[in-house]
């Protein structure tokens, strides 16, 4: 058993003294693992992601990236290991898709370096893999939501990371694009061996695509482990205040959550 890629140990975080947003949060993301982070609004999911990629500093505890505390790793080095995919982001200037994806190469280049043939090849591959190769010369403003989402993934891929953090990336996508998105994620995970931590509101998508789940409730980990252990009717009732039915999905074999009534 090697070190986990990402190891979260007893993390506390607070924006204001006395109002803890995260309390003693612990879990880990192993080598080549896909972990889903779920929890109701305000449970601290997005804050946790920001702590994980070093944008916010924990008040106590530590986030270890292959055994090293994230807070002691410089931004550039961190960006070579951890890539974040945003949910939807305005692009205020007319950058082209190729330029956006090339921004993923930033942490690999020295200050005055222009991109070399290697970088161009890596960017081409990333665009190919995410299916935006044909859009390389288009401006971001001209793309659909699904296309833009794939550009953000391509940019993350161009960073050549070991871990990808995804923050509710599918909320603005229709059901087809949601599935395409997660299929792509799975493919990347298989072919590149990238560990993935994704945040989502959709417990069914989480159940289907994650290997393990972490259920967050008011800043604390309520349950963590295999999907069947986390997605129980009891857990969901306790955390979401909602009566649900959990059964086996007839075709995927993963848990299926059907909402019944809000309590």
């Amino acid at each position, binding site marked *: 058993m090697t070190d986990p890629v990402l190891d979260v140990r007893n993390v506390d975080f607070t924006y204001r003294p006395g109002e803890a947003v995260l309390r003693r949060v612990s879990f880990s993301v192993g080598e080549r693992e896909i972990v889903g982070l779920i929890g109701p609004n305000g449970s601290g999911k997005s804050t946790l992601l920001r702590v994980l990629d070093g944008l916010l500093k924990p008040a106590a505890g530590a986030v270890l990236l292959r055994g090293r505390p994230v807070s002691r790793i*410089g931004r550039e080095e961190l960006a070579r290991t951890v890539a974040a995919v945003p949910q939807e982001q305005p692009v*205020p*200037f007319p950058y082209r898709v190729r330029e956006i994806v090339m*921004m993923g190469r930033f942490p690999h280049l020295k*200050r005055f370096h*222009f991109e070399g043939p290697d970088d161009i090849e890596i960017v081409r591959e990333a665009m190919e893999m995410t299916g935006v190769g044909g859009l390389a010369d288009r401006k971001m403003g001209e793309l659909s939501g699904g296309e833009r989402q794939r550009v953000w993934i391509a940019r993350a891929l161009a960073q050549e990371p070991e871990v990808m953090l995804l923050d509710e990336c599918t909320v603005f996508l229709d059901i087809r694009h949601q599935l395409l998105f997660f299929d792509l994620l799975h493919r990347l995970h298989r072919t590149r061996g990238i560990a993935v931590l994704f945040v989502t509101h959709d417990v069914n998508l989480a159940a289907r695509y994650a290997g393990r789940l972490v259920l967050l409730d008011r800043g604390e980990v309520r349950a963590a482990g295999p999907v069947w252990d986390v997605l129980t009717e009891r857990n969901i009732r306790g955390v979401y205040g909602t009566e649900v039915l959990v059964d086996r999905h007839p075709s995927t074999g993963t848990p299926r959550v059907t909402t019944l009534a809000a309590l």
Partner: protein
Amino acid sequence: MTAYRVLGISLLLALVFLAVVIVSLLSGAVSIPFADALRGIFLGWMPGESPLTAAQRDIVFSIRLPRALFAGIVGASLAVAGAVFQALLRNPLADPYVLGVSGGSAVGAMLGIVAGAASLSVGVPLFAFAGGVLTILPLVGIARKGSDLRSETLLLSGVIVNAFLSAVILFLLSVASRAELRNAMFWLMGDLSAAGLREAAAGGLVFAAGFVVLYADARPLNLVAMGEETARQLGVELEGLKLRMLLAASLVTAAAVSVSGIIGFVGLMVPHMMRLVFGADHRLHLPACALFGASFLAAADTLARTAVAPSELPVGVVTALCGAPYFIYLLRRRDL
């Protein structure tokens, strides 16, 4: 983006600037035959070779050349500062004056004019520069306070600072004498007639230093333009970078404004034109803005000198008259 593309396009735009300067040397109230003038420009520095009279040579080299160069430096300063502010604040409507540097410089200049500094040759620009720099200082205070320098906060504080300073300017104008008033109006509209070799050299020095600082961060600036969180996630150490760039861009603006007065539209429009033509990558965008801004303002100033010759328009009138309609056209044609 490759270094060759940046160099190639920069060279091209430098040639455009050279052409504008030559045309500017040939135009003016005193007409000089075209062929003579051309030979004079290229051979004039050799003793005995010039076909121009001593008076003509004086006009071309001691009056028109420093003024064209100075116009170029002011244009470059405003365009580069505008581009940097637009990217840092992620706001396509930002310009070099957005944080109040112009207002501060104007108050300084008005004080100088009212205090009679106009009789000293460097008086008014010195006052204006001091005023501009003093406006930047509270900005540094705001910037230092939180680790995160929110662009909305900056924009709003700029609006407020400018509003306050406008009131001070109006007050100073209301107590000014008639002669002072005319001086003040020309300064406020932007006017390059005070430009000499010394101003061109000083402005050039400040611009060069500022440009080096800004261009060193051209690549991370691309990411900052996408959003600060994104920039950090992609590996930019934001601390220091924003403050460094805000200060450099503000100083470059203050230096330009201190002599030229408040020339509008160059710093807003040139970055948009350059982005439309060459894209938004700042490694090319900044030099393109510098060179085209220089050409644009030198051309506008030539027009200002000659349109109603032998009298002169303030160059700010020309830039606003050309700039505003063009900008509306841009807005209608496509999104920025």
